[in-house]
């Protein structure tokens, strides 16, 4: 007879399961949030485990309240506010821990599991990569398994009895989830304002440049954007992806022109068009990237007077756009005198030696080309390309670089070169962006990473207009021809094994992974309104609106849901009982045929006792069968021989 009275006390094993799930889901946060948050969480969870394990008292409510206040103040002190991404998540993590601490009833357990689902979501604020996605799926699985444990009153289920049904639930939910994911109408933009740092942690070029900030970017392996050329891929050395153009210089930092405005560019020469599609990662900035010089641009982007491509709104999610560029172009010959004057200006108080050198060159030659050649010669002779340059004097950084350290990176060369040109009276400016990229041999996509960030210069020549000069090429031609890894040699600053192995197995694996990541970014992470419209256009339904989507969603729910329902109900066929049970049922049938049926509520041993009393002549055989059956069914798992022996005894049994 089975009786399982309901117990209001939480089962220890169930509680430990819940605590473990909470630890698992918070673990990725511990690496991101201040270390004390992780310590606090682990400590509180440990405390709660101890409470259940040793059946000690819960802390008094007043103490919990005090800890809550302390934790809130700690969060405030750490982040200067309570909201924001880091602050908000920290607070949620701390409060979940405290909720665990006062979890006494089934209702609060359920609340904690639901909190766990929110914690899963907060992880996606930081990353939506494939590995994290898989990890979080595992977390959901564990949470469901926990919930199942709490819904088995009176009996804590074994590992398999938790994980198997939880897995079945998730697997059966998948088809419907996919239907929802594809068909649920996506809304453009946030419903309410994003916290300012909601997208923090994104890397990308900034709108200013001072020596050192690109070098940090170059150490990042993150993808900036991917490019699919619709025609032939242009040569590597032409792949200058123009980003923010920096015109204003205060002696230390280059800034973007604030009054830059959209313009129709008049090219005096425009040849060799190339058309391509760019899938850009979120940067939270408005800069879009195009090969010099952009000709046809997407509708929600504008070309500025300085040729940079700007988006109408910041890139907060993965986005796709198509551009046509002229590889051979000439523009800006008719630049007005006022802007040229601006592009020659500098702060005369800072970097005096650099300015003196520029003026000296101007005095010795009036040909701008000769002056450029002298600068390139200078870099070529004495300078070293490195990602770990010495720290420069903040007041006169370019003096320090040109005359003392002589070691630097693209931004050092571009910045000092532009300043030298301005000192020599030649209009010059710094262009930041990316250079080159890496071709994925699987799909011929070009992957441009943060590591490909670059800075170069443009000078204005009378009669020709703005002309690109890349002083870094003078120091490290490979940088421009093959990319940053080549420039740094096989044991470069990027301490990555795979970066050195360009064509081997690892490279292939890496490209395969890239491809997968690309698809993931494009079709899963970047699945937005545009992508959804794209998807349906491919299915032959152009311009779907939310009403059409809603219709198909309802249809899908009926069809997919119906299929899952049917599948579940078909599985309800009687299951083949196991061997010992089958033998036992045969034995009971024999006895029933002899007029001595087993009562439904009667267990094997009770039945045996009754048989022994009423039909002593069967006693010994009945006893052996019952004993073997009980051992096989309720004992440790029976061997094949034991089962066969049981079946044999049943076969030989004669109820006469």
């Amino acid at each position, binding site marked *: 007879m089975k009786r399982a009275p309901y117990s209001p006390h939480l089962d220890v094993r169930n509680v430990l399961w819940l605590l473990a799930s909470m630890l698992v889901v918070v673990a990725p946060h511990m690496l991101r949030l201040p270390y004390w948050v992780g310590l606090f969480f682990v400590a509180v969870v440990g405390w709660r485990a101890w409470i259940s394990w040793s059946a000690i008292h819960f802390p008094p409510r007043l103490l919990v309240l005090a800890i809550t206040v302390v934790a809130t103040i700690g969060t405030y002190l750490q982040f200067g506010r309570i909201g924001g991404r880091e602050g908000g998540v920290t607070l949620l993590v701390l409060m979940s821990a405290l909720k665990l601490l006062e979890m006494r009833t089934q209702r609060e357990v*359920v609340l904690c599991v639901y909190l766990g689902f929110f914690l899963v979501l907060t992880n996606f604020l930081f990353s939506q990569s494939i590995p994290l996605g898989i990890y979080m799926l595992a977390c959901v699985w564990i949470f469901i398994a926990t919930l199942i444990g709490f819904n088995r*009153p*009176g009996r804590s289920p074994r590992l398999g009895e938790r994980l198997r049904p939880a897995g079945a639930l998730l697997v059966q939910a998948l088809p419907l*989830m996919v239907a929802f994911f594809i068909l*649920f109408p996506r809304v453009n933009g946030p419903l309410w304002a994003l916290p300012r740092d909601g997208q923090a942690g994104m890397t990308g070029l900034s709108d200013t440049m001072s020596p050192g900030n690109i070098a940090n970017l170059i150490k990042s392996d993150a993808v900036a954007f991917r490019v699919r050329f619709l025609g032939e891929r242009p040569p590597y050395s032409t792949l200058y992806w123009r980003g923010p153009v920096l015109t204003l210089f205060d002696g230390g930092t280059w800034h973007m022109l604030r009054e830059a405005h959209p313009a129709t560019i008049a090219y005096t020469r425009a040849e060799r068009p190339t058309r391509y599609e760019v899938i850009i990662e979120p940067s939270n900035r408005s800069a879009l990237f195009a090969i010099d010089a952009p000709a046809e641009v997407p509708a929600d982007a504008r070309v500025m007077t300085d040729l940079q491509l700007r988006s109408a709104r910041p890139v907060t999610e993965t986005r796709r756009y198509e551009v046509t560029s002229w590889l051979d172009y000439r523009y800006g010959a008719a630049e007005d005198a006022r802007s040229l004057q601006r592009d020659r200006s500098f702060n005369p108080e800072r970097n005096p030696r650099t300015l003196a050198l520029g003026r000296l060159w101007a005095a010795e030659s009036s040909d701008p080309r000769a002056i450029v050649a002298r600068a390139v010669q200078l870099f070529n002779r004495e300078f070293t390309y490195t990602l770990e340059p010495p720290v420069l004097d903040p007041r006169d950084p370019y003096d320090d670089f040109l005359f003392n350290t002589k070691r630097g990176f693209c931004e050092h060369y571009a910045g000092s070169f532009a300043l030298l040109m301005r000192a020599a009276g030649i209009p010059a400016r710094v262009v930041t962006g990316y250079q080159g990229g890496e071709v994925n041999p699987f799909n011929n996509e070009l992957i441009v990473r943060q590591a490909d960030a670059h800075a170069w210069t443009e000078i204005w020549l009378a009669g020709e207009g703005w002309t690109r000069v890349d002083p870094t090429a003078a120091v490290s031609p490979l940088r421009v021809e093959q990319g940053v890894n080549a420039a740094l040699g096989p044991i470069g600053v990027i301490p990555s094994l795979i970066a050195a192995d360009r064509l081997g197995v690892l490279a292939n694996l890496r490209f395969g992974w890239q491809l997968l990541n690309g698809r993931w970014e494009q079709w899963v992470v970047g699945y937005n309104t545009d992508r959804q419209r794209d998807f349906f256009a491919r299915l032959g339904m152009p311009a779907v609106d939310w009403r059409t989507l809603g219709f198909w969603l309802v249809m899908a729910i009926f069809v997919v849901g119906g299929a899952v329902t049917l599948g579940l109900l078909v599985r309800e066929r009687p299951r083949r009982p196991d061997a010992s049970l089958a033998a036992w049922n045969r034995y009971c049938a024999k006895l029933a045929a002899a007029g001595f049926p087993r009562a439904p509520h009667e267990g094997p041993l009770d039945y045996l006792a009754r048989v022994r009393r009423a039909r002593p002549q069967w006693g010994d055989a009945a006893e052996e069968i019952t004993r073997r059956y009980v051992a096989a069914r309720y004992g440790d798992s029976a061997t094949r021989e034991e089962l066969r022996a049981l079946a044999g005894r049943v076969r030989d049994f004669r109820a006469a």
Partner: protein
Amino acid sequence: MLADLRQSVSDWIFRASVPEVPPVTLVQRRIFILPTRHGYGFAFVVFVLLLASINYSLSLGFVLTFLLGSMAGVAMLHTWRNLAHLKLRPGRCDPVFAGETAYFGVTLETPSLTRFAIGLRRRGEEALHADIGVGEPATVALPLQTRVRGRARCGRIEVFTRYPLGMFHAWSYVEFDLSVLVYPKPDPSAGAPPQDGRSATEEGIPVRGDEEFNLLRQYQPGDTLRQIAWKALARERGLLTKEFSAMASSELWLDWDQARAPDIEARLAILAHWVLQAEEFGQGYGLRLPGVRIAPDRGEAHRARCLEALALYGLAP
């Protein structure tokens, strides 16, 4: 008042019907299912997750939201399936004395699929849970705290489950003709049965007073188990045998008129005590109530007959 109204509405909806013929199979149309409070809470959670996913353009947030939402739908099917086609039979209901806890046995059987956490409860009582494997019927004994003698009915039983996630409550009502006999609570202060009810043919004169001492002797091999004074053994007074030689063949009539008490229930309590006493000493006894006469005999079945007569005395059949 409101609760009463709710009850009668629910009785009407769920067709609280006449006792059913066992076995009862919980077919599709008699299973009801509704979200629980946790289920509504979960719906709210999914809604908030959806809002957050939209607001932060979190694709994996959408994946999570839709996965959880779909899973709740699948869980509803699982909950329903956990209950559907379950077969119920009435089980044992052993008689008890008033004041004791009676148990209504209900046996549950599943044609396929192991059922987890199937709950049973009588109206207003705590639920009991059982797991039921294929070919392994489970019996749940629903307790009832008895107070008065008579026939206690089990009434409508709610069979329900919330497995696997507790978000849905699937239930069905079953009403078997399940009852338990409640014997009158024996009144030990009544002492031993009076001996003037003894029939004329009797020989031995029983010793009045504390018969327990007077009629015990040392155990001798050959004494039947029935005669052993277990109570004495339990009190560590050694193995003693109850000696009834003087009364073995005597017949005792337990008579309504002899049980002197102010009301019917007290009389029945006295008679119940006497029945137990007589049975314990292995004495043959008969029972005479107004309108009832049970010839002298002894044994379990006889005792049960007498007690049943006492339990049901004066009640509508």
